[in-house]
C-alpha cells in the first residue's frame, strides 16, 4: 500500500533513478542515504543511474500479493546496472522461458500497480530485454 506522500517522496528514485554518490569515497547508494555505509561520510552528490544492465538472478512470482493479482505471473530480478549498482525490479516484456541469468536488459518506465479502482496509479522502473 502506498499513501500519496510515501509514493511521492520516492519519485526522484522511481522516475529518474536518482542516486547519491559519496563525495569522499565515490560509493553510489540507491536510494540515497544520509550516511555512507562504506566510509561514514555524510555528504553526497546526486547522480542518475545508467539504464542498461544485466540480470543477476530472477524468479517468477505465481502466488502474488493481493494488489498484484491481475498481473500474475510476473518476473522479478536483481539487475546489475552498467555502473555496478544493483536494483531489484520486475522484468517485463519477456516470457518465463526467455529469462536467463546474464541476459542484457534496459530500464523502462512502467506502471507498477494501481491502488484499487479509485486510488493513485503507481509508476516505477522495470527491466525489459535488450535486443
Amino acid at each position, binding site marked *: 500500500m502506498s499513501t500519496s506522500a510515501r509514493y511521492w517522496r520516492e519519485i526522484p528514485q522511481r522516475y529518474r533513478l536518482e542516486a547519491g554518490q559519496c563525495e569522499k569515497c565515490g560509493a553510489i547508494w540507491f536510494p540515497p542515504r544520509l550516511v555512507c555505509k562504506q566510509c561514514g561520510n555524510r555528504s553526497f552528490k546526486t547522480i542518475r543511474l545508467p539504464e542498461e544492465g544485466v540480470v543477476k538472478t530472477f524468479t517468477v512470482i505465481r502466488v502474488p500479493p493481493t494488489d498484484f493479482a491481475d498481473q500474475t505471473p*510476473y518476473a522479478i530480478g536483481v539487475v546489475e546496472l552498467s555502473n555496478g549498482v544493483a536494483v531489484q525490479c520486475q522484468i517485463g516484456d519477456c516470457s518465463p522461458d526467455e529469462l536467463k541469468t546474464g541476459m542484457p536488459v534496459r530500464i523502462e518506465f512502467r506502471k507498477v500497480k494501481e491502488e484499487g479502482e479509485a486510488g493513485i496509479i503507481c509508476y516505477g522502473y522495470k527491466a525489459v530485454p535488450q535486443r
Partner: protein
Amino acid sequence: MRDVAVIGIGMMKWGELWEKSLRTIFVEAALKAIDDAGVDHIDSMYVGCMSSGLFVGQEHLGALLADYLGVAPIPAVRVESACASGGAAFRQGFIEVASGMSEIVLVGGVEKMTDVTGGGATFALSTAADQEYEVYNGVTFPGLYAMMARAHMERYGTTRKQIAQVAVKNHENGCKNPHAQYQMKVTVDQVINSVMVADPLTILDCSPITDGAAAVVLCPLELAKKIAKKPIVKVAGSAAATDSIAIHQRKDITHLAAAEQAAKMAYKMANVGPSDIDLAEVHDCFTIAEICAIEALGFVERGKGGAATEAGETALGGRIPINTSGGLKSKGHPVGATGVAQICEIVTQLRNDAGERQVKGAKRGLAQNMGGTCASCTVHILEVV
C-alpha cells in the same frame, strides 16, 4: 557477566488454532514454562512477536500479556526483529539475567497468523523486507528466497532435488514431534511437483502459516544449581548481527552474512567451533534457507549445503543433525515464537528428553534464528552443565 541457565521450557501443539486467541496461546506456553521451571515468581518478561499489530490489531503486547499472565507489575516489553523476534527476545532476556539486573526472566514468543486472510498474512510478512525497493515491485518472501536459490544453484551446482531434500528430512523429523503442525512425510518428487509459488520454489519448499507460542525461563546458573529439578542447560554463547535488508545490496546474495557474523561471535563467546556442536535448530523458513544457514554456521563448506543434505549429513542420525524438531517447515512458523521454540528443542535434546528424535549423547546445541532474508540473525549456543 554471570552465567545464565534455562530452567524451564514450555511448548504446545502448533497449527491453525481457531479457538485460541493470541493472549491465550501465549499464556498457555508461559504457564508450561513456569511450571517446568518450578518457580513461583518471575522478575521480568520479554515477548517476541513480529507483527501482532498487523495480524490482530494489537500492539503493546508486553503490558497485555503481563496482565493476562497475572504477573503485572513486572517490567514486560515486546521485542521485534521480524522472524528473529523470538531469538532477539531470548537474547534480551539472557542479557538481563547475565547483567545482574534480574534473577528470573520469562521469555515467550507468539504469533497468531490465522485471524487474517492469506493475503493479509502475506502482506504482514512482507513488512520484513525493504518496502520501497523490494516489496513495492510485487516481490514476496518466497520470491526473495527463490532468487537466492537460483543464484545458489547457478553458482554452486546445488540441485533442485537437494533443495527438496531439506523438506523431506524435516517432515520426517516432524513426524516424531507431537507439537509439530504437520505430521506427514513428503517425498522429493512431491516437493518438486507441488504448486509453484515463485520459480523454482513450490508450496512444499515454504514454511506454513501457523498459530503458536513457546516460552522459556532463565535464571543465573548459580540459582539454577539450587532450584532446578531437571538437567541444567546453560547459555554458553549469545550473539546477534545485521546485514543489508535488501538482497540486491548484498555483496553475495547466496551468503547469509549476518548468520556467519553472529555465529562467529557466539562460537567465540562459548569458546567452541562448529565441530563441537552436536545438533542445531536453524531457520528453514524455506528449504534453501537451511542450506544457506548450515554453510554460514560453518557446519559445511560454502556451496556444499545441498550436497551435504542429500548425503544425509544433517539427518537425525547424521554427522550434524539439523532441525530434529521438524524445523519451521513441518513444526510450523508462528513467526515470533520460532526463535523461542528452537531453544525449547535444544534444551529438550540436552535434557535427553526428546524421545524418538533424541540425538544420542547430545551435550551442546546451537539455535539460529533469522529475520526476513537474514537481515538480522541471532545465534545461541547451549550446553548441558
